[in-house]
């Protein structure tokens, strides 16, 4: 087992190197310049832009810049933002709590909806409940979040005036009022993201349950005279949840990566909005750091999913 993990970790190194190289070169070759806004300003002479480029090492050849970046990254230096002139890790850490809170809550909401609905639908396939759940799931994952987000804003903020639609990371209150405000402003983004996730997850849970529910050992359990609830929870769900756990593990990086569209709509200062604004302003160090960290998380959680799979299902051996 430990040998397996070690081998997987070693394999991850070249793939991460490859990912970082591709990311870096694509970004370096992309058009645009972090100081382009200065170019149209007649007050700023071209030399300033040139001096800034030189100062931030933008005029070096690409491979040299990549090597610089790589060696800094190995030493734990994530780089220095061109646009904010501060360390990239500070920038990311500033944004991380908000992303974890909002996207994490959305994932939990998705699970809380998807598992009961999926399980119940699978126990009564093609019943009215199953049909309704299926239809809603289809509608749910067919509607993009930018649409449902704006719809929610129009209904709950503009028309009904119940909820704020501009998210604020620092609420000017303490104690219970702070908590209530935090929940209140997160309701819409969490609902939009959570229900979108729940829709596809419900279908996944349902089909995983259906795969198991028809197996002989379930019939045996029923024949023993066990109650429906016990059969479903103890016998069926335990086995059906194995692929679901893997799916959840694979979605974990997204909790850290943020949701670009939703964060933009609700002005949530998370990683996703940091990424998009950095891309728009050509702030390569930030884009590099965010995407690379995301790549690392994907690789890591893939490994975790595999290990979990083996642990949950001892029939699968990891070699």
């Amino acid at each position: 087992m430990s040998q397996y993990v070690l081998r997987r970790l070693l394999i991850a190194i070249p793939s991460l190197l490859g990912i970082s190289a591709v990311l870096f070169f694509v970004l370096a070759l992309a058009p645009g310049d972090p100081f382009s806004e200065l170019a149209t300003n007649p007050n700023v002479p071209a030399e300033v832009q040139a001096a800034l480029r030189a100062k931030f090492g933008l005029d070096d050849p690409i491979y040299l810049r990549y090597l610089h970046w790589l060696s800094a990254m190995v030493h734990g230096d994530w780089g220095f933002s061109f646009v904010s002139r501060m360390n990239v890790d500070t920038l990311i850490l500033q944004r991380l709590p908000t992303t974890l809170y909002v996207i994490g809550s959305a994932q939990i909401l998705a699970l809380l909806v998807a598992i009961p609905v999926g399980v119940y639908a699978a126990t009564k396939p093609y019943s009215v409940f199953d049909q309704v759940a299926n239809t809603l799931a289809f509608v749910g994952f067919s509607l993009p979040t930018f649409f449902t987000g704006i719809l929610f804003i129009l209904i709950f903020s503009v028309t009904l005036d119940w909820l704020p639609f501009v998210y604020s990371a620092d609420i000017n209150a303490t104690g219970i009022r702070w908590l209530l405000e935090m929940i209140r402003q997160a309701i819409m983004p969490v609902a939009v993201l959570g229900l979108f996730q729940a829709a596809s997850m419900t279908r996944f849970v349902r089909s995983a349950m259906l795969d198991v529910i028809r197996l002989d050992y379930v019939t045996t359990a029923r024949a023993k005279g066990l109650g429906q609830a016990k059969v479903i929870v103890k016998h069926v769900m335990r086995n059906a949840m194995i692929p679901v756990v893997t799916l959840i593990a694979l979605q974990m990086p997204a909790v850290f990566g943020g949701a670009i569209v939703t964060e933009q709509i609700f002005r949530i200062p998370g990683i996703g909005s940091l990424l998009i604004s950095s891309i728009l302003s050509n702030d390569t160090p930030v884009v590099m750091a965010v995407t690379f960290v995301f790549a690392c998380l994907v690789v890591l959680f893939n490994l975790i999913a595999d290990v979990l799979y083996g642990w949950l299902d001892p029939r699968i051996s990891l070699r």
Partner: protein
Amino acid sequence: MLDKELRSMIGQVKDGRMDRRAFIKRMAAVGLTAPLANQILALGGVAMAQSPAVYKPTQRGGGGPLKLLWWQGPTLLNPHFATGTKDQDGSRLFYEPLASWDADGNLNPILAAEIPSVANGGLAADAKSVVWKIKPGVKWHDGKPLTADDFVFTWQYASDPATAAVSISTYGDITVEKVSDLSIRILFKTPTPFWANAFVGAYGCVLPKHLFADYKGSKSREAPNNLAPVGTGPYKFVEFKPGDLVRGQLNPDYHMPNRPYFDTIEMKGGGDAVSAARAVIQTGEFDFAWNMQVEDDVLLRLEKGGKGKTVYATGGDIEFIAINFTDPNTEVDGERSSMKTKHPIFSDPNVRKALSLLVDRESVKKAIYGRAGRTTANYLNGPEKFVSKNTSWEFSVEKASKMLDDAGWKVGADGIREKDGKKLKLLYQTSTNGPRQKTQAIVKQACQKAGIDVELKSVVASVFFSSDVANPDTYPKFYADIEEFQIPMTQPDPALHMRRYISANVATKENKWQGQNFPRYVNKDYDAAIAAAETETDPVKRAALYIKCNDLLWTDTVFIPVMHRLLVDASSNTLRPALSGWANRTDNIQDWYREA
């Protein structure tokens, strides 16, 4: 009234032999309004009457929170590193200049005790130096006093090329010396009629010497106060998250009476313009939102029964179509649009004039800009004293067709005009942006009617406005026949705005296309007028020279002005923001208040 008589009267006011009010009265007698009379005085070098900003609150604070929404949030808080106005706006909450520009383009003293003038001895007669008196008793947020040393230091800091400050062009060519603890003298190398540049407006913010002294030059980026400003402004710094949030609280020691009105200030970033408009106008979650680049129809719809409204400020920002004087399709020494070529079609001035007749500015205004635009024939649209009255524009397909017919451009079999085997086909480029693509469509339609074939091209803004030497699609390279974009006028003086188009500034391969004269316009008269204006100390003559430059651009049809664009913001119905088209949104933040 005779010019001579007017001048002698201005002279009398200057010397104090006639008072302002009497002058204005006499002007009124001949039918001139008071603001115009004031303008004339200002032109004549008499100190501008300090615009009486109507400010009603009678005590400091008590106004609760002020919530601002910038759909692009500030990413850094050092005004001398600001890459865009968003950063300047954020810094300006905490840092202050000597003076800022008010709505009419007049100076409003902030840290200055008074605005320098010839009368108070601040301005030298030869226009080579200016003395600013600093308001006594001003304190930095950390309690240290503000002195002339801070100004001298700010100049050293910004003018040091190793600092790489964006304000270097403002400070690079001047010398600042300390006269006394509370006054400084700025020395210019050449007579400088526009003296109010250094320490005025966005780039004028002064930095505390005691906190930045160790971080001048190459160490500039390490200064901890780049992210935690300590200024003299109405609000003290509380918190900053780049791109997301700037927070401040009332400065109890602020140097202006009864100011500021609000107890806390918050500038939130992110999102898009439409939803920002919604948050202010419809739901009232925020008090003020910046830069409403939203179609007027949408704004009008939001305003119906809303909690806020749109507010406008007039500056000199001009959206135009520029004409290429060189040939974009012939390559000379590895360079297209080379100065060694002439544009095959536009070398005929009739084609340029006809094209100008084909831009339907009224329709563009109606369909796109609405209240946020004014039609104009001029490239230079403000301040009032520099605006030419000699120009005009018109939209007429018939006249354009006739002009082209007369010039020998005959409609061919395919409906496109041609002359000497050259077809009237144009490539029209601009940045990718809704209103611009609509303008392109309107122009193309009119051109088609007149027998001109226009091919449209739109380039992503990040490419179009970049200075990437390797990319052929940038606006300075101008590998097209005509191109459209906007040039903002960043100060109420035309010097920088007009200087771009002298022949020494043409964009070429040699200067890596960093020359600002992208139409590659060459006219000796224009060069001479600019050179004369830059050293002309008589304000009346100087204004006349810039008007002449504008008129040359018009007669030569270098630009076809599409729209004189106003600044559009959204404000809550109760907020009274002090805005100016000649300054950034927050440049007069100390004067903002709320009225029930």
